[in-house]
């Protein structure tokens, strides 16, 4: 295939993926928006007003970046895992496998779909947060970079989950038992400075901590982790997961017989 043909194949998957989550927006875009509004009301307004300041900011201002990242993470992951697994389950993955398009294009198409949904939900949640607090932009480039890198990383994660999933239950296990706990313990609601040294050390092994803090830095200008280090950690995870996804596609694990 020529570069132009590869580009068309890539666009075809991206268009299909975006159209899918837009068509079922009641399942994909509305629920995270409602959940985040509840977070803003309960944790930000009701409880936050009693907590006072965190990291030198109102509690609401402190948690908003984390909640936006939480939306980006869960939605980019959820989009790829559900879409790719459905494709595999229905057999329509074969449409792509019999075509001449290279495996990396399939991966790139699904990841772009996941990024698109992660960014779309992130943008909706950010807009909603403006009803509850004022947000300043400390470093726009960092904000964009972190959102893109995070959504790429979790889209790749969703892809791995989908490849190994053998039932719809399997695509719920990782988000429920791994992703949600890591997100809650990833500094969304608190600064790790509040934790005892041991638990602060343990938190360093949580990749979501780096994303939340890097994003918080982009908005508020404060972070528990040096931003450069956070970006490096995210990059390493992306490279590792991308390589693993390509290995799965090339060997046909969970995809080809």
């Amino acid at each position, binding site marked *: 295939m*020529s570069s132009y043909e590869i580009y068309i194949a890539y666009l075809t998957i991206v268009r299909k993926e975006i159209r899918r989550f837009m068509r079922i927006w009641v399942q994909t875009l509305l629920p995270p928006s409602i959940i985040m509004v509840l977070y803003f009301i309960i944790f930000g307004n009701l409880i936050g007003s009693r907590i006072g300041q965190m990291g030198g900011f109102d509690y609401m201002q402190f948690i908003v970046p984390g909640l936006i990242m939480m939306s980006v993470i869960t939605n980019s992951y959820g989009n790829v895992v559900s879409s790719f697994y459905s494709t595999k389950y229905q057999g329509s993955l074969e449409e792509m496998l019999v*075509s001449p398009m290279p495996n990396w294009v399939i991966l790139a198409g699904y990841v772009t779909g996941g990024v698109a949904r992660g960014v779309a939900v992130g943008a909706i949640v950010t807009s909603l947060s403006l009803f509850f607090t004022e947000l300043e932009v400390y470093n726009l480039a960092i904000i964009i970079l972190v959102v893109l890198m995070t959504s790429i990383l979790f889209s790749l994660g969703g892809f791995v989950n989908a490849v190994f999933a053998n039932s719809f239950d399997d695509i719920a296990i990782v988000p429920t038992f791994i992703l949600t706990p890591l997100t809650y313990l990833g500094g969304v609601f608190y600064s790790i400075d509040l934790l005892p040294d041991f638990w602060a050390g343990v938190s360093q092994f949580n990749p979501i901590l780096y994303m939340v803090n890097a994003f918080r830095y982009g908005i508020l200008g404060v972070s528990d982790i040096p931003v450069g280090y956070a970006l490096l950690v995210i990059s390493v995870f992306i490279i590792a997961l991308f390589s693993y996804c390509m290995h799965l596609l090339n060997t046909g694990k969970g995809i080809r017989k």
Partner: protein
Amino acid sequence: MTYALEIDHLHKIYDNGFEALKGISLKVNQGDFFALLGPNGAGKSTTLGVVSSLVNKTKGSVKVFGYDLDTQMSQAKCLMGVVPQEFNFNMFEKVHDVVVQQAGYYGIPRDEAIRRTEQLLKQLSLWDKRDDASRTLSGGMKRRLMIARALVHRPKLLILDEPTAGVDIELRRSMWEFLTRINEQGTTIILTTHYLEEAENLCRNIAIIDQGDIIKNSPMGELLKTINTETIVLELHEPLVKVPQVEGYRLLLVSDTHIEVTLNQGQDINTVFVALTVAGIKVTSMRNKTNRLEELFVNLVTSNKTDLQGVSA
């Protein structure tokens, strides 16, 4: 000479140890209409799965119009269209989108993809259904949708894995006409089917696969010539109690109004008709008891099974 498909010593052993293909070799000429027949579990779908790269082979090589599937996969895939046995499109997509998307996967620009999709959906009488979700189509329409999807990138080799399974006879015949037409236009077609009448009517060459081995591979005409016997059923005008004897022929009264006549190679049916006429028996119609190829197929597969049992004993 470059073959449309060239399979050389293809082996497939599944993870559970089952040897689905035991080193089969096969050549399909360009422009051929080729039947790959075999009983359930014989290895037909595995063979086509390897060719369409949905199944990883264990050993051997596959070439499509000279392009090796291992080293020139992209070129090989561009020349192939695959219609699988199971419905495998997104049931929630519209009919039109299923075909347009497939064209996109082959790098065909959207405008051109839409144009080709319209053409194919019209040819396959699906144009009225273009905006319907594909899950709402009838079984026959779903089969036609898969054919449209497989043809949208204009492949030179079309692989059909039981394309008429579950399709009513009228639709089956219209699909035969369509496939014959595209074959005449130069597309090589490889077909698996359980309807042996279909293979006999459409295909010029045939391979029979059983238990992972090709047990017969020859032109259809030559194969049919090897049939030693043929059974014809005669329907009688009036009920009969005893069947008359005709020297050299085996006649069997299967019901009071039906006689089965077994003809050996070289025997004519006229002698039987003369004998029946002399006996005052009026025949109202006649038909073959089974399709000729079916008879041959059953004989081959049965004798292969017996041979293998003999070897293992």
